[in-house]
């Protein structure tokens, strides 16, 4: 319930995945120094300790580590998932070409080679990327892992949307000839997608349509984890996943439980990251959210979703300094915002949009969402943990409480004395509804009457808020939204929500229907720019332009409050996975 936005990427996603690639994933980094309110803890670890360094560091082997999830993931299949926590967990049994180094906060954003021996080598101005695999790689059955398996994994996950549709399809969008290839289930030719070449068993070459300087982030998705074609059974592969990582499936019961045990054919010499501490890893699904909180506090379980504790638990934890010392409060790499639909009158006029910007009391919204623990007041599109973020506040007001006088001025300039519109929110996300309630209250004070429309999150993008015609017909001028980056860069964050060419008839995530030529061009320019600093300043420019056009109201920079299970070792909250603990090397002190 409260504070349990199903996470990440997928938040947006189910829908989006179907259509394009969406964004999602990995979010940004949390900055350890953003949490300075922890002076009063004297406990060993202390509040926010895992956002600064590894907590309970230990090399002890053995025991069982338990993960619990209140829902079910989209899939355990590394080629068919879009949830950040699955991106995180799947690395135990599926090694992508690149991955994020386990590290606290921002340190976790560092990309390191996993299956690949080194980072990708760009050529042709960033249009061709070459990776060399490590030597001695084996599957759980002892057979060798080759670059052809990596190619196959990319093909099945991105191009066979009729079979595996739940993950993003960036490769389909960016690979040369990606729009013509139908995927390995339909196109049985041995050659497969011709723009991915495998000159030998340890080399893989990706040829893109246009220069893409952040390609290393793209291959950090579990979609590049090798899948042996002979063992692939399409959507049923999830029942018999062939492990390339340090753990393999002992049992898998759909919607209930997965049990992982050590993979004897995994060789530590081929893997500088994984340590294989526990004997067994158990993932329990569909566990009541309150039960998860209790188990976590008892020290026995890890909340797989990583969305943080329930509101009531939060109140209990924060009431005692002792308990507070066992928590980590960190950025979730996401922005909570409200899109202003530029195609719905009168919000086609920038003055009317500015009136909304000034009218909203962001502190009230923040309090409704659960206070500063759940997010800092936002004023930019990019969250502070995404490169390109630069502090600014175009619509500043005293104490962030909104400026009714300025709002009314803008309203007048827009030629209106009052506006009647609708605001949409996802019915199964209480936090979003609470935020909308606070917004309605703020807007009413300046004469903007918004009434709430709730839609289920599963169809929010496919049938409701993501369908431009629907929003126009229903007069939905304001749309509640939450967005996390698929990878920690400005492009990964902005592309899907501001790009005019990304507006689709359904599954649209550019909810403002913002189509500004300058912004579109800047995005394209940025991703082709090799120099990272230059690239980041382009992201900043896009952010500023968007705010000047007032097409969305940033509300809060989302934060999560995690309770740290005391029996778990090597806990480190990483920015790469929305502030979740890095699941690669968690062990246990229990037998």
């Amino acid at each position, binding site marked *: 319930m409260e504070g349990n936005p199903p996470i990440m990427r997928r938040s947006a996603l189910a829908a989006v995945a179907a259509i394009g690639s969406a964004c999602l994933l990995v979010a940004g980094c949390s900055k350890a120094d953003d949490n300075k309110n922890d002076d009063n803890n004297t406990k060993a670890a202390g509040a926010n300790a895992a956002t600064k360094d590894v907590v309970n560091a230990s090399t002890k082997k053995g025991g069982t580590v338990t993960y619990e999830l209140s829902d079910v993931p989209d899939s355990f299949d590394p080629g068919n998932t879009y949830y950040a926590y699955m991106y995180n967990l799947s690395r135990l049994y599926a090694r992508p070409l690149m991955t994020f180094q386990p590290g606290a906060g921002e340190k976790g954003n560092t990309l390191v080679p996993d299956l690949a021996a080194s980072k990708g080598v760009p050529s042709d101005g960033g249009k061709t990327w070459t990776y060399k695999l490590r030597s001695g790689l084996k599957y759980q059955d002892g057979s060798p892992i080759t670059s052809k398996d990596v190619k196959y994994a990319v093909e099945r996950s991105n191009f066979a949307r009729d079979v595996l549709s739940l993950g993003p399809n960036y490769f389909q969008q960016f690979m040369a000839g990606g729009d013509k290839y139908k995927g390995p289930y339909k196109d049985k030719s041995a050659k497969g997608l011709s723009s991915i070449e495998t000159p030998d068993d340890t080399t893989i070459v990706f040829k893109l349509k246009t220069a893409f300087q952040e390609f290393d982030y793209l291959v950090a998705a579990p979609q590049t984890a090798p899948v042996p074609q002979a063992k692939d059974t399409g959507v049923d592969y999830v029942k018999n996943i062939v492990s390339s990582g340090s753990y393999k499936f002992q049992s898998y019961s759909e919607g209930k439980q997965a049990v992982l045990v050590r993979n004897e054919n995994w060789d530590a010499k081929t893997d500088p990251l994984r340590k294989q501490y526990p004997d067994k890893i158990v993932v329990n699904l569909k566990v009541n959210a309150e039960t998860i909180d209790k188990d976590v506090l008892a020290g026995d379980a890890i909340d797989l979703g990583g969305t943080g504790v329930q509101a009531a638990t939060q109140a*209990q934890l924060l009431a005692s300094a002792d308990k507070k010392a066992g928590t980590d409060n960190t950025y979730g790499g996401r922005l909570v915002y409200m899109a202003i639909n530029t195609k719905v009158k009168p919000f086609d006029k920038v003055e009317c949009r500015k009136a909304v910007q000034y009218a909203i009391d962001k502190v009230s919204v923040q309090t409704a969402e659960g206070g500063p623990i759940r997010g800092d007041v936002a004023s930019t599109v990019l969250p502070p943990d995404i490169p390109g973020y630069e502090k600014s506040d175009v619509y500043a007001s005293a104490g962030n409480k909104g400026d009714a006088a300025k709002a009314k001025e803008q309203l007048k300039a827009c030629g209106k004395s009052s506006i009647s519109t609708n605001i949409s929110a996802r019915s199964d996300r*209480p936090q979003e509804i609470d935020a909308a309630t606070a917004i309605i209250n703020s807007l009413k004070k300046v004469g903007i009457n918004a009434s709430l429309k709730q839609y289920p999150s599963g169809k929010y993008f496919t049938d409701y808020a993501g369908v431009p015609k629907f929003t126009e017909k229903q007069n939905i001028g304001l749309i509640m939204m939450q967005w996390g980056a698929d990878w920690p860069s400005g492009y990964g964050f902005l592309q899907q929500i501001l790009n005019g060419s990304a507006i689709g008839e359904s599954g649209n995530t550019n909810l403002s229907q913002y189509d500004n030529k300058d912004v579109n061009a800047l995005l394209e320019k940025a991703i082709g720019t090799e120099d990272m600093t230059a690239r980041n300043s382009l992201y900043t420019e896009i952010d500023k332009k968007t705010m000047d056009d007032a097409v969305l109201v940033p509300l809060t920079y989302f934060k999560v409050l995690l309770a740290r299970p005391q029996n778990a070792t090597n806990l480190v909250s990483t920015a790469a996975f929305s502030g979740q603990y890095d699941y690669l090397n968690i062990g246990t002190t229990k037998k």
Partner: protein
Amino acid sequence: MQVNQAADSGGRRPVTTGQRGRVTVTAPIETTGAAPEAQPEAVLAGVDKGQIEGRSLGQIAWTRFKRDKVAVAGGVIVVLLILVAVLARPIQAMFGLDPNAFHQELIDPNTSLPKGGLGGMSADHPLGVDPKFGRDIATRILEGSWVSLVVAFGATILSNVIGAIMGVVAGYYGGRVDSIISRLMDTFLAFPLLLFAIAISATLQGGAFGLEGLPLHLSVLIFVIGFFNWPYLGRIVRGQTLALREREFVDASRGMGAKGPYILFRELLPNLVGPIIVYSTLLIPTNILFEASLSFLGVGIQPPQASWGGMLREAVTFYEVDPQYMIVPGLAIFVTVLAFNLLGDGLRDALDPRSR
């Protein structure tokens, strides 16, 4: 509801109360005059006029009802509730209360809970304020009362109008008409009502009947709850009609040339008023609960409009740390439903003593 005396007396068995010195007899058959005319005067010759004054069925029921102290208490509470609901908006205006006014300065931003004990109770906010927003709970309960009652009464009226008409038509005409209507009732009864209501309410949220906002939500609820509940009353009315249509007064009426609609609405329905009233009184609390359930599930009244079910929904998150917020709307629903049920039971006993 005033009952047509003639039809009434025709439709009911003579009732005799056991009180000493009083004999009450109602006419064995219908006539056009008032009750006293029907008294068999010969039998009463020599008895003091005052002692034998006839009483209408309404009076009899009222006497019986008054004796049931529990039912009277329920009735008093119901009347008070209706008064409060009707006056909710004027009261708010008079005291400058706004159910949607935020008082977030009373909220601890870290825990979302009201500052101070007991859910933030204070002189300004006698029942405390709600978590996260700091809205006054007393005012929201007041605001929620009319929402609950409007939906419950609206839905009850809707289902009773449909149910009574369908039932009386089915019962009176019989044959094919009866078969069709009865199967229709079976069909409606077979719907998984709650699931259906959830699905429909969610769908109609977007817009229906050309309405928007609160009026839309209210009408959707009234429609969903009322429209699917009619077969219950329909069956009762049909059963009663089956018995009534064989009675002499109906034959007489028909014999004098009355046609179907006249008989249905002038002869049969007035005799069904008793069961309809009783059933309505018992249906209202059910509907209040239904409305609260739908709002609790998020498909009823939409925030920020206050409703009891909606408040409970919000309270669920916090019941462990702020039980106050759950207790208040919970009590409101409990008391209302109990009062209507007691009143309904009392009315049934009073109007239809055979069912005791």
